[in-house]
């Protein structure tokens, strides 16, 4: 590289006239100046193209660029009388290709890519091999048949060579065209992944095989004096592809590791990304491995860690620089393709060869795609249908890689090089221009499923989360371990070792899928907020239904925690980073909250891997929680099914009633003299609270009852039971209004089998889920027996009370309740526990017992409980929550 132009006078030692102030130094700045000029021309051309929306919506940019190149090449040819400014293979491979590949690798949707890796590899390897051989052999056949110009001196090997370089789908062309077409992501990733990965085939198979100039650079393995050594080629193919991948992985690892330590020097973070990726490319080239694969995998693999490590600004820088580089590379490539085509000195036209090649590559690609899809569809979850196959066949665009490769051919060894060059140019032009132009209408006409880029929404996030849980459950039920299983294993490994090694501690903690969604939502909102001049807070936006809860929301979780702990600072990164509208804030908080506490689907973390470094007890806790909740629900369900009496309907009502009653007299069910405690607060505020919320609660019980029918499957049956025996003494008063409803909680805390909760937690979480069933069954049996003893006998006794509860006269309830409670609790197996719990509760606050029942949301309830003016909705929730 030459130093930049210095227009100011700087008379060098060899300057002829020292007095000259200005000096023409074209020669020194020629190369960079030309480069800059070309980029400028191309970029300006892009602007011009995009002036007309109509043109760009019909014609892909790549076509326009090629045409522009043709025009410019023509001008240059006319002016200079010789073709200049070719697409030099060296320049192409060393400078133009890497940015594009890095960009595509880095921004590759990795999950999608690995989901389809099987198909991609098949198409890339088998498909490309098939295309190469079929095309080569068919062309050779044409040649043998004497249909070609006798000037085409080429043997079978030459044709095979040509076939393989011409049959490789080109990533640049595919990207350029498909990005505008917006086919669905699966289709895109398959075609694009193929185009990236088949480079290994081309480089590994073609280059060693064919005599290539500049072997030192692009094919060090290529003394290639034995081009037709099948075995050697096979080995070299694997070596080249796997080696390239390995190089890429190595550098991805290095890159991630380096970015872990750039905390103090944020400014050079983007540099590392580009530098190391480029070094990976060069290193792979150096040892004649597949450099495209190296960069691709480097990009794919490092992204996760790098993104987590580097700062937000660096992330943006990386993104934009990468996109800019890739885009300008692409522009230049296409333009120079056009320019190069003008150079007739390299051409040698043979109509048969050209037409034959065109026909064969189209035909064999279609055949290959159909055949492979047939096989692949047997293993695919979502089969590729016929339309997909058409698009895949048709989307096999050839591009600059083929052109550069054919230029690289050694004319001394491949006699027909000129013919091949011409054919390649025609093929590239045909695929890029004709197919590129027609693929969009074709896709529209075939109604190929389009992709739509949309913002993640809270709904999708939640529902998908639910789907994950569902799928995990169904997989468990079916006892199936497939793709998810291995993916899961990998993720465990990643979580356990890689992330730990490659990510900053702080970054690791923040890494989460929901976090990502949340983060992106935030950024988007924030940006839009700023873009709109910061006055998006119109009245319309503020009048969200979620308004009432805003204050409570914005003070939740972290912020609140911090405030409580007395520190004025807010550690919420988002708050610091971005200026947000209230809505954003709300969004943020919500996602924050969700992220923190949504249960992870099981398959994301196999229990057998449960030892995490970050918070070893986190999953344990989650498992424990879920397990407990599930058991609780099951107990309830079991109760209702077993006895068919505690219908959900009555249960809902009873629960509520029990609660009401408890609000007044619950402590009385503790047999050990705690009753005195009742008196003072019984007549106090809490009663009033209950009264005020009475109506709403009955409403809530209505809805709730309906809900319950769903949870408890026997709901309808019990409904009949309920109606059948409407007698006051009917068993539907079930176990006891006050004990059974809380029983989940109480039982959970106090039942003997819950006593070994600690053990239980260990079982559930650490390693073996297999131990759980044993434990669970034990628990199950015990809980059942305890429930049975609770349930049946006292029902009749409590019967009469049922009526009394139903009537809203408050004065009666304390007495009846206090009468009933001792009876019931005498039947209750674990009175001491009850008393204990109630004691502890009543110690804390008078209405503590009530909360006990209304767990597990105790913390949240507290304020609302105390405030009588609290919205009825919350009460409904509390009630509900206790069911959950």
């Amino acid at each position: 590289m030459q130093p930049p132009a210095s227009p100011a006078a700087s008379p060098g030692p060899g300057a002829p006239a020292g007095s000259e102030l200005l000096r023409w130094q074209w020669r020194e700045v020629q190369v960079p100046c030309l480069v800059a000029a070309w980029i400028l021309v191309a970029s300006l051309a892009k602007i011009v193209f995009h002036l007309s929306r109509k043109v760009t919506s019909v014609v892909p940019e790549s076509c326009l660029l090629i045409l522009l190149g043709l025009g410019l090449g023509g001008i240059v040819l006319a002016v200079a009388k010789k073709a200049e400014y070719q697409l030099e293979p060296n320049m192409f491979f060393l400078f133009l290709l890497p940015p594009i590949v890095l960009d595509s690798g880095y921004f590759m949707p990795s999950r999608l890519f690995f989901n389809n890796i099987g198909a991609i590899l098949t198409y890339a390897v088998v498909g490309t091999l098939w295309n190469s051989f079929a095309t080569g052999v068919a062309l050779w056949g044409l040649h043998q048949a004497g249909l070609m110009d006798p000037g085409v001196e080429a043997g079978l090997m030459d044709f095979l060579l040509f076939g393989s370089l011409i049959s490789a789908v080109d990533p640049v062309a595919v990207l350029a065209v498909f990005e505008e077409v917006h086919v669905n992501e699966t289709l895109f990733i398959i075609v694009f992944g193929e185009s990236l990965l088949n480079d290994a085939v081309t480089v590994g198979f073609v280059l060693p095989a064919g005599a290539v100039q500049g072997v030192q650079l692009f094919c060090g393995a290529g003394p290639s004096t034995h081009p037709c050594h099948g075995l050697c080629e096979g080995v070299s193919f694997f070596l080249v592809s796997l080696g390239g991948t390995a190089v890429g992985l190595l550098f991805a690892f290095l890159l991630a590791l380096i970015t872990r330590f750039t905390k103090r020097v944020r400014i050079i973070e983007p540099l590392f990304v580009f530098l190391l990726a480029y070094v990976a490319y060069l290193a792979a080239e150096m040892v004649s491995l597949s450099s495209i694969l190296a960069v691709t995998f480097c990009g794919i693999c490092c992204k996760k860690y790098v993104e987590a490590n580097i700062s937000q600004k660096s992330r943006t820088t990386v993104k934009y620089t990468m996109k800019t580089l890739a885009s300008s590379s692409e522009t230049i490539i296409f333009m120079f393709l056009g320019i190069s085509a003008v150079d007739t000195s390299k051409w040698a036209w043979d109509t048969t060869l050209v037409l034959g090649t065109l026909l064969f590559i189209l035909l064999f690609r279609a055949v290959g795609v159909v055949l492979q899809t047939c096989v692949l569809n047997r293993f695919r979850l979502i089969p590729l249908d016929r339309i997909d196959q058409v698009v895949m066949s048709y989307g096999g665009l050839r591009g600059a890689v083929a052109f550069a490769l054919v230029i690289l051919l050694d004319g001394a060894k491949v006699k027909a090089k000129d013919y091949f060059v011409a054919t390649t140019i025609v093929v590239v032009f045909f695929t890029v221009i004709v197919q590129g132009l027609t693929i969009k209408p074709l896709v529209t006409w075939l109604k190929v499923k389009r992709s739509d880029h949309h913002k993640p929404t809270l709904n999708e996030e939640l529902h998908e989360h639910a789907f994950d849980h569902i799928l995990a459950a169904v997989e468990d039920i079916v006892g199936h371990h497939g793709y998810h299983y291995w993916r899961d294993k990998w993720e465990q490994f990643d979580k356990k070792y890689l992330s730990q090694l490659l990510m900053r501690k702080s970054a690791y903690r923040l890494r989460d899928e929901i976090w990502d969604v949340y983060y992106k939502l935030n950024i988007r909102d924030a940006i839009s907020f700023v873009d709109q001049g910061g006055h998006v807070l119109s009245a319309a936006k503020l009048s969200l239904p979620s308004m009432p809860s805003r204050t409570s929301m914005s003070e939740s979780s972290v912020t609140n925690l911090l405030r409580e702990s007395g520190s004025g600072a807010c550690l919420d990164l988002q708050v610091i980073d971005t200026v947000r509208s209230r809505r954003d804030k709300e969004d943020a908080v919500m996602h924050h909250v969700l992220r923190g506490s949504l249960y992870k689907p099981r398959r994301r973390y196999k229990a057998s891997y449960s030892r995490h470094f970050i918070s070893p007890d986190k999953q344990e806790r989650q498992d424990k929680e879920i397990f407990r909740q599930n058991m609780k629900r099951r107990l309830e369900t079991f109760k209702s099914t077993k006895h068919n009496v505690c219908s959900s309907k009555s249960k809902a009502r009873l629960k509520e009633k029990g609660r009401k009653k408890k609000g007044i007299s619950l402590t009385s069910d503790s047999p050990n003299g705690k009753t005195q405690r009742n008196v003072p607060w019984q007549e106090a505020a809490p009663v009033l609270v209950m009264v005020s919320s009475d109506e709403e609660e009955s409403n809530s019980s209505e809805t709730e009852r309906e809900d319950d029918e769903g949870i408890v499957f026997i709901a309808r049956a019990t409904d009949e039971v309920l109606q059948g025996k409407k007698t006051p003494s009917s068993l539907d008063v079930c176990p006891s209004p006050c004990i059974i409803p809380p029983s989940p909680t109480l039982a959970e805390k106090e039942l003997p089998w819950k006593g070994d909760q600690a053990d239980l937690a260990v079982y559930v979480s650490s390693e073996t889920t297999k131990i759980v069933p044993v434990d669970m069954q034990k628990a199950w049996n015990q809980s059942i027996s305890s429930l049975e003893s609770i349930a049946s006998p006292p029902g009749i006794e409590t019967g009469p009370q049922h009526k009394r509860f139903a009537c809203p006269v408050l004065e009666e309830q304390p007495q009846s309740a206090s009468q009933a409670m001792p009876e019931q609790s005498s039947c209750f197996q674990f009175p001491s526990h009850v008393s204990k719990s109630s004691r502890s509760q009543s110690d804390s606050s008078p209405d503590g017992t009530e909360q006990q029942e209304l767990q597990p949301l105790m913390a949240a309830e507290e304020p609302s409980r105390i405030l009588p003016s609290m919205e009825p909705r919350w009460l409904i929730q509390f009630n509900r929550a206790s069911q959950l």
Partner: protein
Amino acid sequence: MTSEAGACPLVGGASLCACARGLAHGGGAGAGWPFAEPPLLLTVSHSQITRLYSRFTSLDKGENGTLSREDFQRIPELAINPLGDRIINAFFPEGEDQVNFRGFMRTLAHFRPIEDNEKSKDQNGPEPLNSRSNKLHCKKYEPSYTIAFRLYDLDKDDKISRDELLQVLRMMVGVNISDEQLGSIADRTIQEADQDGDSAISFAEFVKVLEKVDVEQKMSIRFLH
């Protein structure tokens, strides 16, 4: 995996299997079942049935040809799946306590990958939301939506109310989220999806919200192949 792949209609195959063992648990399997039987069910191959049947019998600890809730609950992973019970419930027809193999298969068939012809049928008519949701209401073509929706919609009024959403939310999040927070999330979620302003998510709205998500794909498992 067994290599026998002769496709036989499921109903025949299943009852064949069941009858052969004298286990046919008569009646009611599909009686109160809310979902229409998906047509793709008929293409389950013999080996799949065999495989699932062996799984079924291994789950069936009571060895009476039916699965009870406890049988499902014995699966260890389900005990730590927050939605485990709801999913178990999905296996049981309304009012039933047992599920036989046929019912078992019927539910699992909802998670089958969608078939070729079906998919193309779907594509050929890129219908507006209306007709699509109508189709969904027939509950024939997109069982995955239905099964997910039913997971929320407990009272079967074809609406996810705020409370129903809250319930599921509560199942899916840990205990350290307060009710207000959860309530706001539910509010926000409903607000996001709600179109007709009834503060509930109807089935059509549910589908609409998820139309960007490839639910069929996300909700299929390759256990039947």
